[in-house]
């Protein structure tokens, strides 16, 4: 796995809202087929990093390469084309509330493919079946629970058979059992679809269970302070702050 080619590489990226710098000189590489975790405490800019990777926020400096192509240097049309290889699961599902669950999944297929209605319906049923939501096809998002909304959002993210799946806090707001089921689902989908997965999260159980690579962002120095899989960081990282985070300990000043 470790010699798999790079799919996404972030090179010296600085992210800022106006004069306020969120993260600077950020570099990391996501290899094809890996489950990559963007870790860090609350407010360190994890979700902002995700936004710049999925095309919602232009970095103030640096470049993001998708298959060696500079994403932000490309024209807007080309960016949309690249973006079609991405599937994004937003924090609370972000389902379009005026449409049924089935319509939510069907919309990307209607917009970006020339498939006929019957083929679209088959694919919608398949994607909803994969996340165990086939029965909810005619329901409205407001009728679903938080976990179901996330799974429906995942089905929508899968609609166009993406190469890369981005998850923003997949376990946020879910109970431990639903959360671990979602983890299993993510693993099975990765193995089944061969997709690369980027996860933004601070939920340790889920990070240890699924991620095999990652980067740790620090809110204080505003850049990455460690690279590696969550389990490796827990056992081997020399940085006391990362170790404390991974072991859920409070950072104590060592006496002497």
């Amino acid at each position: 796995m470790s010699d798999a080619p790079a799919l996404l590489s972030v090179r010296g990226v600085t992210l800022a809202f106006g004069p306020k710098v969120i993260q600077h000189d950020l570099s990391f590489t996501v290899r094809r087929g890996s489950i990559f975790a963007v870790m860090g405490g609350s407010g360190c800019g994890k979700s902002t990093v995700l936004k710049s990777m999925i095309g919602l926020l232009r970095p103030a400096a640096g470049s993001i390469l998708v298959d060696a192509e500079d994403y932000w240097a490309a024209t807007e049309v080309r960016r949309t084309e690249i973006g079609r290889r991405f599937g994004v699961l937003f924090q609370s599902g972000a389902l379009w509330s005026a449409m049924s669950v089935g319509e939510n999944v069907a919309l990307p297929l209607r917009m970006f493919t020339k498939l006929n209605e019957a083929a679209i319906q088959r694919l919608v049923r398949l994607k909803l079946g994969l996340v165990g939501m086939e029965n909810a096809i005619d329901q409205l998002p407001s009728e679903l629970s938080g976990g179901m909304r996330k799974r429906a959002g995942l089905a929508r993210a899968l609609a166009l058979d993406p190469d890369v799946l981005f998850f923003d806090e997949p376990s946020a707001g879910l109970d431990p059992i639903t959360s671990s089921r979602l983890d299993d689902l993510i693993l099975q989908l990765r193995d089944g679809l061969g997709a690369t997965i980027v996860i933004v999260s601070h939920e340790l159980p889920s990070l240890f269970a699924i991620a095999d690579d990652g980067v740790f962002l620090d809110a204080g120095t505003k850049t990455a302070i460690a690279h590696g899989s969550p389990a490796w960081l827990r056992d081997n990282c020399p940085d006391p702050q990362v170790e404390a985070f991974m072991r859920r300990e409070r950072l104590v000043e060592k006496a002497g």
Partner: protein
Amino acid sequence: MRTPPSPAASDRAPAWQVHGSERGAVLVVTGNWIAQSGRVPVFPADGLASVPARNTLGFDSADLGRWDSGLIAFLWDAERAAVAAGLKVDTTALPGSARKLLGLLPDRVAEPKPAARRRFRPLAWVGGGTIDLLNEIGALSTLLAMTAAGGALALTGRARMRAVDLLGNLRDAGPSALAIVSTVNFLIGAILAFVGAVQLRKFAADIYVADLVGLALVREMAAVMTAIIMAGRTGGAYAARIATMQGNEEIDALQVIGIPVSDYLVLPSILALVFTMPFLYLYGCLVGMLGGFVVSFAMLNITGPGYLNETLKAVPLDQFAFGFVKSIAFAILIGVTSCQIGLKAGRSAADVGLAATRAVVTGIVGVIALDAIFAVLADAAGL
């Protein structure tokens, strides 16, 4: 998505065949199965009818090219057809990743839920509609009563309302509305004068244009037009704001903390309209009369002092009081209905739009209906 096992497999259309064997049937899939190519076939529901039950359906994917969810959709159809035909399914010959995805899918056709049918039952509709209407009136009165109670508390200085909210609402409902109120009332006055001038000129009764414009504006037009503007401008904004707060659970948070929604949200909204609308009405009357004078001056042989004198003679002060009271009633109506519509809106983005639309429509229709009631009452009271 996947690299083909052999170069020969690329660029081939997806194809399938069912071969019978001694232990059962084997489904052979070949070629490239890409969902977005639009070439992926559908497995027919009776595709396995010729295979005797209790046999096994196996798979052969040795000559399979590239594939994505298009293949999975096809295999899922085949699997469900096999289960329906009483066959066992053996997926060991499929690629491991395809087996994992198939494993996630249920192997039976989901029973579609029967859709609720809408029968023709006019009596039930009338009854339901009446109950809804009564509920609505009850909810409106309750909200009005609670707001009035909050207003009474405010008089004693114990209201749970923030002065800054009231000031913000006053600014939105008052000064910011001046431009549109001026424009509309000026034009209404001008139109009234124009219509009057054309008719009255025939009787050489030019100067009575001032009476017509003055009375029409003060008794009806200025109050109604201003109220319609405020229903569209402010009522819609109130409903949308409260409906959005509903969607963000902000209303729930207020209730949990124990801040009454009627005091905190509804009272400043209604007070802002009640304070500003009567003055907007008076202002609208003056601007309307100016509009009427401009047209009269241009079309007829009328002087400024003459027009002013005739207007003062035609419109006694108690007519202004009548319009003033009407404006307050319109303000309460618009404030209460738009807040109530916002409060009972759903929680989705579409519901916010619906709430704003309903608030504007209800406000405009309500204002005109209430004005009709006032006209009847005024006639009965001889005003």
